[in-house]
């Protein structure tokens, strides 16, 4: 398949959104059309994952498309490497499952004509953030994703939802504004926004020390999106007001996009600079420990299914952050090769964990939705006895819950195992201890839902109104799809881990990515320092002009001239 076709990953969801928008008056047509687009989207993503993972030539592992044939780093670049391809495949699968669920379970009040276009735009934003090749495109992708999520958030507008919507919208807007400011500052210092080009500058050791505050500010931006300590406060209040399908979509995708971007930016782009990692690694590791432990303590104290699940998102984000931190840290007491191998393994563990969490978390939210359909509430004091009423739901829930808690041989175990082992290798004993304790408390809180919701004496709507039957076929089908994927990640963990290690190696050793994007020919042209044209600037700006900016700018002019 030609490399330039990776743009289909953006074209398919965008086309779906436009078609769904035109069909907003015809809901019965929107549904099959949307499903067809999402299936096509999944197939395209899976096809490219196959391409990048089976390429015999290492150069074939990173697919690049330059929009309008403008050479990087001057044009817009779309890149699919194994990490992006893996994320794309799993996220498109999660989107498909949520869509199937929403077809039958979502209240008409929410699933009005404009739910579908917004859903597809959200998919577009998520997929674009995975393939974006420069920081500013990442910003635009985030904005599309967030804008769609704002719109979905206020669908059906209950009052509680409106009030939480402000919190969500305003905090994300502040985050976006900081992000765009960071883009400007990074451009001001490095003269480029292209991820591969920045990676090259960092690898060559040409990152000015003045960039470190900007990079720390980026941690703030992505940390708020990922909901890490201490920037998580918006998440527990907002997600539980949403209907289950939408909560599942947000839980499965949005925070994980943040975690992906953290790996891409902090490990791949800036991980090669010892100065940056020396500043960021302690911050990330401490935040990881606090995030995972406080998150799970919150979950243990909650008493409603959706609240437990939403606060659990935070706790799981802690593990991803732990992987990012271990993947950046300059390991003491290990030789260079062993340290790199340990970093690579930690990133692989984080990637495996993100993929596992996308599937399982979304699945649990959908299970919570069906529990509400059956029992009329998700307050654990008011429901019970669902095991007899809905044995299939109970079975699927138990598998997903135990996967989340990480019982072997289910999927959560392997990600955590790799992370904890690398934690011991890197002598981060406190953090690793917290990770193990968190795991036990996760099991406790999942068993709380199980014993109160499914095992306790029957109570709730299905007892008081025994003739009230609900339609759950579509819901069960999509949950079953996700559970099957989660089981395959448990029993086929070695093949998933192989893909995750491949993805981690392109991030930890970014040479392949840089060469693929910039091209072997372009690299030497950018390498020598050109004299900057500082003399024609005003005196107040001449300090800027030294170094990288003049060089890049002249190279840009070269390329324009040669065209």
């Amino acid at each position, binding site marked *: 398949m030609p490399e330039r076709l990776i743009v289909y990953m953006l074209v398919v969801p965008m086309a779906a959104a436009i078609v769904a928008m035109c069909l907003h008056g015809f809901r019965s047509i929107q549904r099959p059309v949307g499903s067809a687009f999402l299936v096509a989207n999944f197939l395209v993503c899976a096809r490219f994952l196959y391409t990048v993972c089976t390429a015999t030539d290492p150069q074939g592992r990173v697919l690049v498309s330059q929009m309008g044939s403008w050479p990087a780093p001057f044009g817009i670049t779309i890149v699919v490497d194994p990490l992006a391809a893996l994320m794309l495949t799993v996220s498109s699968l999660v989107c498909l499952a949520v869509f199937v669920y929403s077809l039958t379970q979502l209240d008409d009040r929410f699933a009005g004509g404009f739910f579908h276009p917004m859903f597809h735009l959200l998919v577009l934003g998520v997929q674009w953030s995975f393939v974006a090749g420069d920081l500013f495109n990442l910003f635009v992708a985030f904005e599309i994703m967030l804008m769609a999520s704002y719109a979905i958030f206020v669908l059906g507008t209950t009052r*509680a939802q409106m009030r939480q919507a402000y919190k969500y919208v*305003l905090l994300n807007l502040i985050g976006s504004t900081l992000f765009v400011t960071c883009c400007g500052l990074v451009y001001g210092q490095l003269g480029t926004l292209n991820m591969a080009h920045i990676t090259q500058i960092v690898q060559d050791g040409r990152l000015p020390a003045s960039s470190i505050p900007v990079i720390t500010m980026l941690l703030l931006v992505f940390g708020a999106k990922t909901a890490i300590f201490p920037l998580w406060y918006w998440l527990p209040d907002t997600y539980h007001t949403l209907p289950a399908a939408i909560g599942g979509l947000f839980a499965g995708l949005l925070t994980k996009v943040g975690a992906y971007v953290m790996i891409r930016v902090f490990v791949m782009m800036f991980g090669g600079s010892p100065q940056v990692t020396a500043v960021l690694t302690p911050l990330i590791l401490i935040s990881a420990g606090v995030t995972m432990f406080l998150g799970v303590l919150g979950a243990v104290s909650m008493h409603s299914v959706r609240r437990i699940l939403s606060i659990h998102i935070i706790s799981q984000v802690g593990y991803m952050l732990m992987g990012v931190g271990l993947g950046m840290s300059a390991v003491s007491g290990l030789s260079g090769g062993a340290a790199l191998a340990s970093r690579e393994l930690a990133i692989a563990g984080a990637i495996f964990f993100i993929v596992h969490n996308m599937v399982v978390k979304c699945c649990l939210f959908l299970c919570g939705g069906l529990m509400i359909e059956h029992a009329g509430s998700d307050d654990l004091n008011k429901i019970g006895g669902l095991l007899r009423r809905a044995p299939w739901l109970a079975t699927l829930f138990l598998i997903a819950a135990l996967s989340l808690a990480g019982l072997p041989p289910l999927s959560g175990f392997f990600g955590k195992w790799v992370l904890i082992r690398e934690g011991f290798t890197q002598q981060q004993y406190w953090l690793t201890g917290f990770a193990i304790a968190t795991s036990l408390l996760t099991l406790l809180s999942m068993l709380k839902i199980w014993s109160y919701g499914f095992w306790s004496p029957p109570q709730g709507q299905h007892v008081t109104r025994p003739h009230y039957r609900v339609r759950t076929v579509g819901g069960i089908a999509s949950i079953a799809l996700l559970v099957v994927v989660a089981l395959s990640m448990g029993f086929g963990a070695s093949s998933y881990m192989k893909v995750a290690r491949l993805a981690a190696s392109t991030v930890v050793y970014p040479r392949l990515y840089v060469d693929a994007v910039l091209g072997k020919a372009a690299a030497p042209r950018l390498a020598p320092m050109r004299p900057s044209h500082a003399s024609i600037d005003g005196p107040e700006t001449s300090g*800027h002009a030294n170094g990288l900016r003049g060089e890049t*700018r002249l190279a840009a002019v070269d390329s324009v001239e040669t065209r």
Partner: protein
Amino acid sequence: MTLLTCIMVGVIFAAATYMMLGRELKGVCMGVFLMGHGANLAIIATSRSPIGREPPVLGLARISELADPLPQALILTAIVIGFAVQAFLLTLLVITWRRSRTLQLAELAVEEGA
């Protein structure tokens, strides 16, 4: 010129932060809009002084005298996105007002509790 722009960015961010700390939703939203303008100004400050440079259109000027086009392209995109966000937030404000007849955060919270 750049120094002046930088000071302006600082002032705008400070004013925006002050507005966002208020207890009234309209002011909070205006603060967010203002902060967006501050961010745009920060980007233009990274592009060196455009005074005395030609507009970035090829064929009109010598290449060495062109202003840096990239920050201008970035700002254009950021402004368009900002418009969309502002339209959305203002709509949200109107709907909230129609539903609750108040935009005071404290009153909204009380109403939700009742």
